[in-house]
């Protein structure tokens, strides 16, 4: 099989990977150990494979890895700062906004992209931002509450908490 090199930043670290020209970003990220990027429908419907590319949420199941050349990719693994969770992650814990957890990385990354652009969104804007990520267990109320709570906390330093809790 033909191969090529792709250079990109993942969670702030410069990477150079050998890929197949037809590889999808989802497959490459999981192959490299970023298992927070979930394989769901593989058709751009469920949103579980969401990552941020240059700050924007995209479905990694629909993007060729070669398209990420030169990009900054953020996965859920890069959202916390060491042991300090992001305020959105804190809020998801506080509001019980995760159940099985499969959609949680995508929910948090979509919320992060929204809050980075718009620190004080309306509830409607939060719902819109989460609409491309399907939760099949707890639903959307708690995630929406969590994102709104994270937004109202913005600017405050997040409390230290064990990332593995």
């Amino acid at each position, binding site marked *: *099989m033909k191969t*090529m090199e792709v250079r990109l930043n993942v969670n702030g670290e410069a990477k150079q990977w050998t890929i197949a*020209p037809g590889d*999808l970003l989802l497959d490459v990220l999981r192959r490299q150990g970023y298992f927070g990027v979930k394989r769901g429908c593989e058709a751009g419907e469920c949103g579980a494979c969401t990552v941020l590319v240059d700050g924007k949420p*995209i479905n990694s199941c*629909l*993007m*060729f890895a070669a398209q990420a050349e030169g990009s900054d990719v953020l996965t859920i693994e890069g959202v916390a700062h060491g042991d300090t969770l992001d305020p959105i992650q804190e809020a998801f814990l506080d509001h019980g906004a995760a159940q099985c957890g499969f959609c949680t990385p995508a929910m948090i990354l979509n919320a992060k*992209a929204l809050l980075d652009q718009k620190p004080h969104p309306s509830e409607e804007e939060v719902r819109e*931002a989460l609409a491309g990520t399907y939760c099949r267990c707890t639903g959307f109320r708690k995630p929406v509450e969590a994102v709104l709570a994270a937004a109202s906390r913005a600017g405050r330093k997040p409390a230290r908490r064990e990332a593995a809790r």
Partner: protein
Amino acid sequence: MFDTVEAFYRPGTVREALRLLQNGKNRARVVAGGTDLVVEADQSIRFLIDITHAGLSYIRRKGKACVIGATTTMATLENSPAIRALADGILARAAATCGSVQIRNMATLGGNLANGSPAADTAAALLALDAEVVLAEARGRRKIPLTAFYSGLRKTAPGKALIVEVAIPALPRGGRWSFQKLGRTESDISLVNAAAGLQLDSQGRAKWVRIALGAVAPTPIRAVNAEKLLVGRKVDQSTLAEVCDEVAREVRPITDVRASAEYRRDMCRVLVRRALEECAAGTGCSL
């Protein structure tokens, strides 16, 4: 999933993209947002040509006209002040309904047309704006009306040409526009979509009318008979009823998993009426 792909190219110019497309013969495919291409998973693809670095992401005013580069994303369109201000923002509104946030960050205007889907949301809006598609080939560029771009179900005119730009000409002064969509959710695929444009003369009669619909025929269509029926007449409830009946005669919807043909036909009436009412209200005409 794309194990057959031998090379992925990222041309920096349209000229280079065209050369690669030509060299790849039938085995080369253009990638822009990829949101339709990847799902299609065509196993005959050997070469992928990513045109998102070929300088085709732009929105420019050219006098009273507006040109939009083919790789401009739906997210860019929906947030662009120029597109939101153009023709009551119908193209921005249509772009904002083309799937989830993630999809709209990837999907492009050129791709929405190239995919050839009769349900393409931006197509109905563009038809109501008399849009033209600029195609590039090795021998040069040509501009065709969007009405001539579609040749049948999922069939489009370009052939080996590359869509490089969508051009929206100067629009009628004082015209008003509306975009309406019916889907299970706002961002789901349209069961029916409709766009309308209306300009009144000094006597309050319809002077310029555009009625476009999607997901109700093999291609996005203009309801030209219904348009003609309205031209020269006062826009009132009984005229609108006649126009909407004509629309229902002109469309050719199918029954599928999402809706029956009968339901779609009825919804054409409803959406076109809402669209024309919104246009009329915008012109200050009371119904």
